[in-house]
């Protein structure tokens, strides 16, 4: 049996088993089973990837046909899996980081009862399965299947705390917003089907050039609509911050490390189509850049630490999208990889803080926690450094690469770079702000502070591993002028072999170094500002609803996206539907039906009351009239 099947179906099997019987097994067994399945999946994934690596670079593609999904005479599509460098990288990320997060969750969720515990792990395993389906897909139908299934598991996990209305709302919102994107994806699939008569990547992507420019643009934009939904790009980003209603490991796994990167993955996967349309690529890049910048500005004023990381995730996803949008697929994917590590780390660390403070998430009530939880503090600082792009961390290299490509890549634009740069500056500020508010300065809520404690080792271990990973992963993609050892680029090279120029050639070493210096300086300055602002006794946090300026109010309310959607889509749509129901359905359509019945009854009443009134003479009159009618008709026909 192909190891990929184990990778894929073992988590599914465990998920089903745990969901059905996990509650009876007890917590330990359920968690153990779940973790083990992901670890085994990781092992098999690693094995598969190593096997792939052993192949010559040009033929690194393994196609696995599981069974036929649909067979419509001239059109067939199967449940087919494709292992290539791109999906190989992704399955390692999904199972690897997935495992660490599972491990973390063993500790994090231990207060839940056995049933909930098993349910949690079932859902998470199911998510792993869904995500693997997505990345391993060899055709558009399977990728759409995975695409939707991660949506479902995300929905389930966001709404994990089923008794909470806000959790259920957030899950619903996530799913519906994603569905808006899926609408585009579905249309793109149909267009591809029309154009190629097949949905297999192997039949579509190598022959993408056959698409007319207009069609390529349409397909690209529609695909990106799907990608934007899943990767929380503006204006479809609104679900991601709310998704933090889910348990923290979920935020780390799904809403930071893996699922949300699916959009980036999709664009990279279909780059052959995007490359045909400068317009589509432009939309991708500008969407990414704007999202990166705007989300970073919002993150600067939020006080809920998970929410800060959520907006940060939106922003970082913007960078990845910007990367693929400017044609720097490798750079975008590299940021995906580094971000997976450090954002997972940041969320887990935030979870650790939250765990220590019994669910407290408001950074205004924290402070000075480094004494109580040094490990969490240290690892979170590592993560934040990566996020902020402190030199020599992985985030520094990956973000740097993207910005460079925005300035000098094949589809570069100074505006893109500028937005990216400003976003990076904001990132440095909010990362610093969060770290300093939470761990440094004086405790602002003494009661909470007194009861704070470091997390157990099952939570600590993943933090450490992820911190190490966050730092180390940067080595895979050092800038080209430092070393010729470029494992990441080389590994993905076969996937992007169809692209024309080697983009980096256009950037001089001086420019690269100059930009690095600029970023370093910016990070240092903004970090210092954050330190000054947020370590004091009365840190510069305004209270809820207290706006210091119009700008602050704008950011605090996240540019009023939710309100706008609430008005346009929810209230207007519901209002319209209600109107439609009352006046059209009940009024016009049903009214016609009932009106006909009422008219018949009225006619019946008329006949009974007026015509059959019991008077013989009237009856005789009708009789005579009838006779006249007959005679009249006869005469008419004989005229």
């Amino acid at each position, binding site marked *: 049996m192909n190891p990929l099947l184990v990778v894929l179906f073992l988590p599914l099997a465990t998920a089903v088993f745990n969901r059905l019987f996990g509650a009876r097994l007890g917590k330990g067994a359920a968690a153990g089973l779940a973790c083990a399945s992901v670890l085994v999946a990781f092992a098999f994934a690693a094995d598969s990837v190593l096997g792939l690596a052993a192949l010559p670079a040009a033929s690194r593609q393994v196609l696995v046909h599981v069974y036929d999904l649909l067979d419509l005479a001239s059109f067939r599509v199967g449940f087919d899996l494709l292992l290539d460098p791109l999906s190989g990288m992704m399955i390692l990320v999904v199972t690897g980081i997935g495992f660490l997060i599972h491990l973390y969750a063993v500790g994090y969720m231990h207060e839940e009862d056995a049933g909930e515990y098993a349910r949690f792990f079932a859902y998470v395993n199911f998510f792993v399965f869904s995500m693997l389906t997505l990345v391993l897909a060899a055709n558009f139908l399977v990728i759409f299947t995975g695409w939707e299934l991660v949506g479902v598991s995300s929905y389930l996990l966001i709404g994990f705390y089923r008794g909470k209305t806000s959790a259920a709302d957030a899950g619903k919102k996530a799913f519906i917003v994603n569905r808006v994107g899926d609408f585009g994806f579905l249309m793109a699939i149909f267009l591809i089907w029309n154009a190629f008569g097949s949905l297999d990547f192997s039949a579509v992507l190598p022959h993408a050039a056959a698409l007319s420019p207009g069609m390529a643009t349409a397909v690209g934009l529609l695909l990106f609509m799907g990608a934007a939904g899943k990767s929380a790009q503006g204006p479809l980003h609104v679900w991601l911050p709310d998704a933090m209603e889910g348990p923290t490991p979920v935020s780390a796994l799904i809403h930071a490390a893996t699922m949300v990167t699916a959009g980036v993955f999709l664009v990279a996967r279909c780059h052959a189509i995007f490359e045909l349309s400068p317009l589509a690529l432009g939309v991708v890049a500008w969407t990414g850049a704007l999202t990166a910048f705007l989300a970073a500005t919002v993150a600067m004023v939020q006080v809920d630490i998970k929410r800060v990381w959520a907006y940060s995730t939106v922003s970082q996803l913007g960078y990845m999208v910007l990367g693929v949008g400017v044609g720097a697929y490798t750079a975008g994917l590299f940021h995906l990889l580094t971000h997976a590590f450090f954002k997972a780390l940041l969320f887990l660390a935030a979870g650790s803080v939250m765990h220590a403070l019994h669910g407290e998430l408001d950074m205004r009530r924290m402070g000075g926690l480094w004494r109580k939880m040094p490990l969490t503090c240290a690892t979170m600082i590592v993560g934040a450094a990566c996020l902020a792009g402190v030199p020599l961390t992985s985030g520094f290299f990956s973000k740097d690469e993207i910005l460079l490509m925005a300035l000098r890549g094949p589809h570069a634009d100074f505006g893109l770079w500028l937005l990216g740069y400003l976003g990076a500056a904001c990132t440095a500020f909010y990362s610093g702000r969060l770290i300093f508010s939470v761990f440094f300065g004086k405790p602002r809520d003494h009661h909470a502070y007194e009861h704070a404690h470091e997390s157990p080792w099952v939570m600590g271990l993943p933090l450490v591993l992820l911190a190490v990973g966050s730092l180390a992963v940067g080595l895979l993609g050092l800038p080209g002028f430092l070393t010729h050892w470029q494992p990441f680029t080389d590994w993905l090279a076969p996937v992007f072999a169809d692209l024309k120029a080697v983009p980096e050639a256009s950037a001089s070493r001086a420019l690269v170094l100059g930009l690095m210096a600029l970023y370093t300086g910016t990070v240092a300055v903004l970090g210092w500002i954050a330190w000054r602002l947020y370590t004091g006794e009365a840190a510069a946090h305004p209270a809820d609803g207290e706006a210091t300026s119009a700008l602050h109010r704008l950011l605090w309310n996240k540019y009023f996206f939710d309100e706008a959607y609430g008005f346009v889509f929810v209230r207007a749509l519901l209002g319209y539907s209600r109107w439609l129901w009352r006046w059209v359905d009940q009024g016009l359509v049903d009214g016609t039906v009932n009106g006909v019945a009422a008219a018949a009854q009225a*006619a019946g009443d008329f006949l009974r009351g007026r015509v059959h009134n019991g008077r013989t003479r009237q009856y*005789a009159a009708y009789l005579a009239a009838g006779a006249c009618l007959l005679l009249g008709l006869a005469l008419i026909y004989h005229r």
Partner: protein
Amino acid sequence: MIPAYGLRDLAVLGPEIACILGAALVLGLDMAFRSQSSKRLVEAAAALALGVSAALALGRLAAGPGSAFGGQVLDGAVPDVFRLGLAATGLLTLVLARREGGSQGLLHAEFYALLLFALGAMELITVSQDLMLSFVALETFSLAMYVLAGFNKAWHGNREAALKYFLLGAFAAAFFVLGMALVFGALGSVRLDAASALLSGGKLAAPREMLLDLGLSLCATALLFKVGAAPFHLWTPDVYAGSTTPVAYFLSAGAKLAGFGALLKLLGAVPGCPAPFPQILAVLAVATLLAGNLGALRQTNLKRLLAYSSVAHTGYVLVGLLGLGTAGSGAAASVLAYTLVYAVMAFVAFGLVAAAEGGLKRPLLLEDLQGMGFERPYFSLALAVAMVSMAGLPPTAGFIVKLGVFKAALDGGHTLAAVVAILNSVVSAAVYLRVLVALYMLPKSPDGAQGGARLSGTLGFAVVALALALLALGLLPGSLLALGSL
């Protein structure tokens, strides 16, 4: 030259003669035995006469068409089946009278005699080829029916019904007389076969043809009055409601059979049924359907509801008549089948009304049926079958015959009339569903009739058997369709 008539001529009229002799026998027996036991004897004699009449009709059916009295009487398959149906209707009326006749003051020899006279005349009109003969027959059975409608003089309703029926019936008959005069003017005779011979030979001058059509239209008025076609139908609800239930049944089923038998003969005078007759029939059919169905829609008195329903059914039969001009449309057969099945459906319905109203001092209302569905399962099922059949829904005989009339109309090219008629079926379904609603879906009404609605005795047997027959004919309608090959 005086033609010589013989036994052969009498044989053709055998069924009628059996009825008339039966009537005489009944009266004679009543005079001979003025005792309580004579009631049964009289009843048996009447039944016997009707049985003989039916048997003779069957014999005539087997013997094939026969002309008698110089062509004034012409029987054939269709009239013979009408006669058979009339005799059967008479028997069913006896069954009904047996159940409630006592309490309704019907069990007198005169009742049976009048019934037999009426039936004899009704059978006669279906074979008559001579308008004068038809007129005499029409008046004979009409007079008998006026009396039957007012038979129970103690009932106020009976008296009013009789007077209304009489005045309107006589009024309608006057139109027949005038019509007959016009026909005579056109043809020099009142023989239908003469008309058909002249018309098909094209030997009739245009003004005379017009006169003939006017005359036939006026004659038709009286017949349409009898079958209850709008706008000549207004008497039906009042008279049915005012009469005793057996008489109401007889008025509805018997008059329909006889009236349509006569109408078929009348229209047979105009071969190919040229204009204006199809137009007249179409207008009347639509008017009748609307009047009957819409009138019944809000009716709560069950007998009135059945009266309106009888009007509506007349409408459907008229739709079937539309096909008369087209050879092979099976129009006559569809009319025949429809009226026969109507007689059965009406019997089940009126029979159940009779069973339910037992001892009730006021008219039976829909609400009296409430809650009976599961308490009186057989009663309710039989009524439900009758209602479904009347609504023309499968799998009942009502559906098959309705299909027949629609088919005839469509074959005659009267698509529009067929569409209107079929949409009327929705209204009629609404009417009959109300009965089912009352039976099965509403709780017992506090002032509803108590006790009655037991199916027992001859009536119970007949009602259940005929309800089953409606179902059986719906599933295996071979015998109904065989009428088409007559």
